[in-house]
């Protein structure tokens, strides 16, 4: 993986807003925010051309802490809003940032369609396997038996594997990151932004307040870099790496080239605004 952080061109402060993060001390989301700041300054984008789209949840507050454009929507609907923005203006740099509940529970129906659409955005899911904003309930990525106030006997639901889901949905870039490794995370976000198509980064971002099971410490013990010979263009290898539980692999699991949704839309556009009067005149003729 290239060390993109070495070519940083913009001061970090340019991307910070005046709004101070609302997260608890020690929240994994701080690491993700810093990773994003670093990735954006590496890319050298102007803040006017960036749109951060999110849903609802602790992590979805992130756009307020960045000095770019943002759309903090409603719970679970980040993908449709991001789709609309990109269809309207494909030149904008759109990143979606939200949590595991937003992406895989209430927004689960949208996730796989954004993936199969191959929308050219980078989607960072800040995965803490817990609902934090509502003070600690089980999430789609919580392990079986996870005890919370809504699952006092432990959740019977099996966890979603976001990477397998993304690969199956048709995402063309699938990676796993960890907030405890901010440099690698920033590099992955840069790769995700550079990827043409739907880039999913599931990022372990521990909740120190409500999740005492999935912690910085546990993730450090359970995760490992992908073996150097991992070929992300090989679907079979990708599925195997995504499904592996011991260790949980970090890095680019899957990468494939394919036409983006925006390219498809652009290719279909046979005219411009200037053609509107002629198109309407032709329609009136057709129906006369």
């Amino acid at each position, binding site marked *: 993986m290239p060390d993109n952080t070495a070519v940083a061109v913009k001061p970090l402060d340019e991307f910070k807003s005046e709004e101070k993060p609302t997260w608890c001390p020690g929240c994994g989301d701080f690491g993700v925010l810093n990773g994003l700041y670093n990735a954006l300054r590496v890319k050298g984008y102007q803040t006017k051309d960036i749109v951060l789209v999110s849903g609802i949840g602790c992590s979805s507050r992130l756009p307020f802490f960045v000095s770019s454009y*943002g759309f903090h929507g409603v719970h679970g609907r980040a993908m449709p809003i991001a789709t*609309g923005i990109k269809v309207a203006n494909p030149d904008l740099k759109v990143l979606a940032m939200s949590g595991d509940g937003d992406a895989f529970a209430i927004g689960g129906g949208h996730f796989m369609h954004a993936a199969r659409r191959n929308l050219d955005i980078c989607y960072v899911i800040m995965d803490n396997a817990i609902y934090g904003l509502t003070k600690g309930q089980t999430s789609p990525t919580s392990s079986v038996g996870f005890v919370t106030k809504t699952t006092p006997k432990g959740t019977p639901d099996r966890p979603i594997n976001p990477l397998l889901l993304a690969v199956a949905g048709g995402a063309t870039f699938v990676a796993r990151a960890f907030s405890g490794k901010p440099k690698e995370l920033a590099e992955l976000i840069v790769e995700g932004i550079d990827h043409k198509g739907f880039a999913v980064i599931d990022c372990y971002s521990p909740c120190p307040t409500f999740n005492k099971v999935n912690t910085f410490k546990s993730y450090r013990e359970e995760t490992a870099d992908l073996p150097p010979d991992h070929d992300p263009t090989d679907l079979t290898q990708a599925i195997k790496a995504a499904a592996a539980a011991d260790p949980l692999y970090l890095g680019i699991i899957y990468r494939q080239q394919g036409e983006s949704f925006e390219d498809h839309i652009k290719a279909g556009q046979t005219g411009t605004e200037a053609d509107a009067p002629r198109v309407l005149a032709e329609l009136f003729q057709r129906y006369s």
Partner: protein
Amino acid sequence: MTQRDDLVIRVAGEAGEGVLSTGQLITLAAARAGYGVLTDSVPPSEIKGGHSLFQIRLSSHRLQSRGDTIDILLAFNQEGYEKNIGELREGGLLLYDSGDFTPPENPGTYRQHALPLTDIARKELQFELGKNVVAVGAVAALFGLDPEYVKRLLHQRFARKGEDILNKNLKALEAGINYVERNIPERGTLQLESSPPSDQKRIVVSGNQAVALGALAAGCRVYAGYPITPATDIMEFLASELPKVGGAVVQAEDEMAAIGMALGASYAGRRAMTATSGPGFSLMVELLGLAAMAEIPVVVVDAQRAGPSTGMPTRQEQGDLFLAATGGHGEIQRIVLAPVSVSDCFTQAVNAFSLAERCQLPVVVLSDTILGVRTESIPTPDLSSAKVADRLRYEGNGHAGPGLESGYRRYQFTESGISPMAIPGTEGGQYVATGLEHNESGRPRSDAANHRDMTKKRMNKLELARQAAPPPHVYGDEDADVGVLCWGSTWGVVVEAIDVARQKGLKVAALAPRMLWPLPDHQIKPFLESKRIVLVPETNYSGQFAQLVRARYLRDVTPVNEFTGAAFKVSQLLDEIEGVYQHAR
């Protein structure tokens, strides 16, 4: 049969057997010949085959409703006969394809003749596919349509398929005409005058097509939708047209996604729309609230069908007014418009974009099944009146709009409540759109004073909208004591009922506001105050519009409700008018 100034023809048979194409050919040819044309049909449903019907009403003048009864029923098969014969008027004419079935002897209340479409096509023409064109020729001959208009249509439709196909179709037309001239003695009494030729250009489109044309003319460039009866053809229409003007159509995974995409597109600076029917609209309400809170213009068309739940997908009901006007959690600011006819579908689509842009609000257009599938011959819309002014935009780099302080605040308090909107890509306009309560800069805030002031700011925009309400439809005698206040597709039936009432010497006035929410006081109040009795006919059970009117004006009105899934009949509303007339004097 007595001579009359209009004629209702219904073609019925198996879906996919040419009912629709027969009806459409007659409609277009008659419209070109100068007839007033209004059609009704059962919209395509989810199941292939089954019963299908296409009804055409023709007149020398403009028509406003489908007609209460049928004058001519053309049944392609037994089912088409059985399902529709009950609506054939006394003294009407039944024609049936004798190659397919023979109906029983009729009780003598109508006439019936065989019209051997299948046999003529198969045996006489050796061209089985020509059955529909034989039918077109027969119907054309019945009411005296100049065959030249049909021939020209056949040329347009079949010339590119080769001379052989074209000639076969022309012969089929001829065969249909000849058969009627030789075998149907009633044709002499069915002749219908067309209106004198006029220079005014006309088009024949459905309500759904008119909505799509209006949106296109109003600058809609992104459409996202999820297929649903009876709104789908709006999406199909725009899917082929928007790319020609640099726009795009996205088929979303559900209706929440559809309106979410439209909001994203509008946030990014392009005019955007979605269209759906009741079940989809229920799902969209969540993001209607987001549109109101984040102050993002968006247009949502709800082609109402009969509900609740999946209800009757191919039937009509004016049942979504409460949902459109007041549905959703919190107090969602939104505008609701209702078109009354096919040409009004165009006008109201333009109005919707105009109001959405101006007020930075979601605008709901309440159409319905009847309006959506109905085709009418309408004057070609005037595009110069379809120009829509852009929303108040933040120009960037500290250049605030007129009367605004420098430094950008997305939700800056202004007198009108309208704040300049920055579009991503604009330097200096960076902000975060949010459904959370926010301060002028768009930052999440939940202190009391801020919420009070922001609520007032958003609510003030409704007053702006109220004042900007497009002109209402008015009809009848302004000084009448009896008034009819209605909305949407019920209007056309009301107009025709008033015409009949007038012939009987009754004075009635009618009003249909184009804007249903917020209620345009300056249009409705004087009407209520000048009438002794006000009827409010709606095709719903609970009288939703009547309730909104009562609540706002503390004035009782007389609800008239039809909840069968069908429109009112003219005779039904006439009875209601006559019923209250004595009390009003």
